């Protein structure tokens, strides 16, 4: 079995900072990312960078990824790209799949810096080819230089939606419709998006971009069954962490957006602290990293982080009300009978389970996400529920009045990715 002192999973800003810090403190570090290059979300964003350091600020974000790559090469970090960490087993044993097969990696300490995925919610037509996440649109525009379509509708509001609208227009696409609320959107067409309507407006369009924001993705930490708390800001559960970003499982750290970090600067600062702590760096270095992290956080975020320490269960969401724009989606999804516009819409894309079928499971007594999963197969597909768990939680909340804070995430089991069966057979000992 291969071994390393510190394994860092995810080579976005948090993971890169963790790897650099741990290497600086003298530890042997392996940095793993499933994408072909390091940088995480930096790779496909082109907005000017803010809040990292003087050498990087002002560059288009994607250029900063290249600079960080050079820093990793200069430090003694072993970088594995194109490699997915798909399982976290007892005693720091990670299963990693590469195109050449799977291997086990024994790590003394693990930093999970797996970032986020885009938040999505179902609307009629959302499975049509041409409908994609904001991240997919950015990847096509900036990494591959392809327009998602010439006439594009954008669903969502807020800074991420504003950024993708700007990106689309800069690349020469026309944004023909914007809708803040996914509950108001209908996409239609024969085998692909041809029309989109929202709030009484109707446009011809050949793509729809979903930009509702991002949701933390700490899957590997969930597999390790770390203690969780509830974030009212993000309407989801997050790993509880000590001052040094260690979870309830000793030696397992979570840093960056995977743990709810708000932005790049905070993700980077969290990564550095987790890397130093995992490597057992000197107290002076750790204290300096803690101060830098405190500066990168707003007072609200600092208060949230304090609530999400071990021994405190986060904050319960009041019984009513969900953060907009999801509240009206939750109401619409829970309200209909079996024949409204949403009944036939897939909630789970992978297993093609409709909102109507999930409503029925709830009527028949399902009170947890795992109940819904067992009754309908929703969430059992290849995406492991990452694109439907939020919709299930909102639907449960709105139809049964269960506070979101009490709806626990679905049980995570390896593998976290649809890896070929051969990979499982090939795990080298």
């Amino acid at each position: 079995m291969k071994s390393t002192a510190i394994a860092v999973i995810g080579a976005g800003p948090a993971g890169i900072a963790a790897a650099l810090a741990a290497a600086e403190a003298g530890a042997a570090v392996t940095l793993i990312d499933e994408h072909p290059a390091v940088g995480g979300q930096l790779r496909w964003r082109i907005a000017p960078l803010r809040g990292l350091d003087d050498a990087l600020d002002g560059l288009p974000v994607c250029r900063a990824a290249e600079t960080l790559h050079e820093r990793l090469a200069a430090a003694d970090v072993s970088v594995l790209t194109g490699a997915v960490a798909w399982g976290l087993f007892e005693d720091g044993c990670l299963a990693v799949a590469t195109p050449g097969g799977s291997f086990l990696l024994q790590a003394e300490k693990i930093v999970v810096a797996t970032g986020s995925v885009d938040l999505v919610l179902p609307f009629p037509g959302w499975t049509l080819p041409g409908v994609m996440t904001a991240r997919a649109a950015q990847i096509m525009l900036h990494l591959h230089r392809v327009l998602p379509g010439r006439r594009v509708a954008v669903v969502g509001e807020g800074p991420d939606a504003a950024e993708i609208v700007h990106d689309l227009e800069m690349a020469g696409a026309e944004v023909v419709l914007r809708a803040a609320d996914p509950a108001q959107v209908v996409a239609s067409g024969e085998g692909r998006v041809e029309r989109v309507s929202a709030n009484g407006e109707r446009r011809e369009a050949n793509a729809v971009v979903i930009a509702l924001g991002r949701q933390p993705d700490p899957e590997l930490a969930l597999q390790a069954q770390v203690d969780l708390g509830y974030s009212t800001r993000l309407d989801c559960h997050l790993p509880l962490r000590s001052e040094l970003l260690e979870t309830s499982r000793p030696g397992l750290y979570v840093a960056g957006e995977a743990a709810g970090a708000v932005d790049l600067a905070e993700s980077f600062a969290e990564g550095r602290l987790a890397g130093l702590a995992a490597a057992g760096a000197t107290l002076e270095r750790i204290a300096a990293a803690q101060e830098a992290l405190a500066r990168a956080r707003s007072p609200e975020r600092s208060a949230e982080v304090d609530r999400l320490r071990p021994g405190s269960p986060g904050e319960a969401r009041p019984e009513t009300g969900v953060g907009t724009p999801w509240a009206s989606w939750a109401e619409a999804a829970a309200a209909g009978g079996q024949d409204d516009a949403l009944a036939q819409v897939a909630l789970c894309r992978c297993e093609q389970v409709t909102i109507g079928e999930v409503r029925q499971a709830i009527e028949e007594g399902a009170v947890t996400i795992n109940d819904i999963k067992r009754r309908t197969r929703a969430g059992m597909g290849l995406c492991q529920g990452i694109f439907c768990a939020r919709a299930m939680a909102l639907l449960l909340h709105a139809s049964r009045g269960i506070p979101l804070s009490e709806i626990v995430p679905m049980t995570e089991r390896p593998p976290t990715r649809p890896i070929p069966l051969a990979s499982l057979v090939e795990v080298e000992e």
Partner: protein
Amino acid sequence: MDEARSIGAGDLRVLHHPVLGDLPVSRPVQITVDGQPLVAREGEAIAAALLAHGILVCRTMPRGREPRGLFCALGRCTDCLMTVDGEPNVRACLTPVREGQDIWTQAGLGRWEGPAG
């Protein structure tokens, strides 16, 4: 075939960009999609080459043959599964194009057909 197409510049290609500059010339890579020849750009993902030429459907689903295409571009949703050189369930959003690749829209869960050729 006009010149734009032969450098892999399909209809939806972003040729000029205010921040990223002009699209660099790249070596053309010849692929076939459902038997039709297509020119892609070296290094790009299969799904990007398809989208550039206005091809949106990667697979159809087991239920109702519902068509699906690129959704997350991260390898997470599996809406982009295609059959490539006889191997089913290849994620078109992550898999780079290669000279001579034989790519088929995948029906349902796909069927192993062994390496082509």
